């Protein structure tokens, strides 16, 4: 499955979900697919912390549905995050592991043990129950609505097997925002949809 096609398909199924994208390619792909700068937080250079960030947000705002993307390069730096996620077991969090079997943000540099890593098995081994895998656009389009509609308890882990970015795709634009601008755009959006006060004052 092409990386960008996969993200465009997921974007088509999105309704009101809040998104946290991870360093490198997932930020590029989500920005290309959506151009969203308010309901998506591009946690660039976070190196394995996008789903922890998303977990904190999901815990704080349980009525929001949170999607968090993370590449398998980031995942292999901190797979123990799944222990924390399983322990928190937040039903409003979906962790999308984007498996391109490479360090995509660094020109597809080699990932350790990339041929044999079984991310779904790792997740199940840590006790996660809602584990899904998609390796083709057809099954993603077919089954994603059921995944999204499910009202089962516990957080969701989705493995997306995608092709690494091509050379041309690597040149796609990064979300063109400095950190504080993203913080305020995103935070004001969270305030508007929940009524909470992130920054302690309103403008």
């Amino acid at each position, binding site marked *: 499955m092409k990386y960008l096609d996969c993200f465009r398909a997921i974007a088509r199924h999105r309704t009101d979900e809040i998104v*946290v994208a991870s360093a490198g390619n997932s930020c590029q792909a989500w920005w290309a697919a959506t151009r969203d700068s308010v309901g998506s*937080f591009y*946690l*660039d*250079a*976070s*190196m*394995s*912390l*996008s*789903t*922890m*960030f*998303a*977990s*904190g*947000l*999901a*815990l*704080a*705002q349980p009525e*929001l549905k949170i999607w968090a993307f993370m590449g398998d390069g980031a995942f292999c730096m*901190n797979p*123990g*995050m799944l*222990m*924390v996620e399983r*322990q*928190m077991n937040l039903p409003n969090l979906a962790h999308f592991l984007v498996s391109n079997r490479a360090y995509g943000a660094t020109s597809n540099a080699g990932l350790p043990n990339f041929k044999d890593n079984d991310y779904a098995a790792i997740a199940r081994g840590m006790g996660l129950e809602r584990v899904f895998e998609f390796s083709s656009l057809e099954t993603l389009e077919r089954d994603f609505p059921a995944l999204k509609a499910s009202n089962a308890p516990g957080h969701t882990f989705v493995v997306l097997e995608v092709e690494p970015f091509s050379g041309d795709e690597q040149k796609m634009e990064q979300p063109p925002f400095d*950190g*504080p601008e*993203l*913080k305020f755009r*995103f*935070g004001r959006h*969270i*305030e508007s949809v*929940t009524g*909470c*006060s*992130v920054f*302690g004052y309103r403008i």
Partner: protein
Amino acid sequence: MRGKTSESARRIADELASCGVKLVASLPDNWVMDVIDTIEHDDRFIHVPVNREESAIGLCSGAYMGAMGSAALMGASGFMTVVYALTKINYTYEIPLFLMATLRGAVGDRHKHHVSNGLYLLPVLDAISMPYRIIDKPDDISSISRCYRHTRTYSRPMAVLFTRDLLRGGL
């Protein structure tokens, strides 16, 4: 001495609650076990034990974006592993974060494996321009609220560092 240290832990918990902290993400250090135990059993908090200190930084940063007060609690050694996360998330996006750590390797710490923390913890904090306050006695615990509020003004992280005298007594 256990009674005195538990009293410090209770006062730390009260101080955190008073400034709106709900989530506490922790990784242990022997010195903060009373604090962790107190928070774990206090209904005012959601305590999340994490797999590594960087995960605490991610969790607390996300909680901030959801308007939930939070604190990361860790040992000095753990702090030494989170510089990347702090600078990339909390400095880049200017996301406040309140961090509590132990002042290991200082006078009174008899563990030789913490000598490196004694040598480098404070210089590392200075190197990343991260403000900190050392809390050495129970009467100083009330400064936690001021430091917490400073993270919201400063829009970056700040640490309070607990000494052995505070957490374990001065023996």
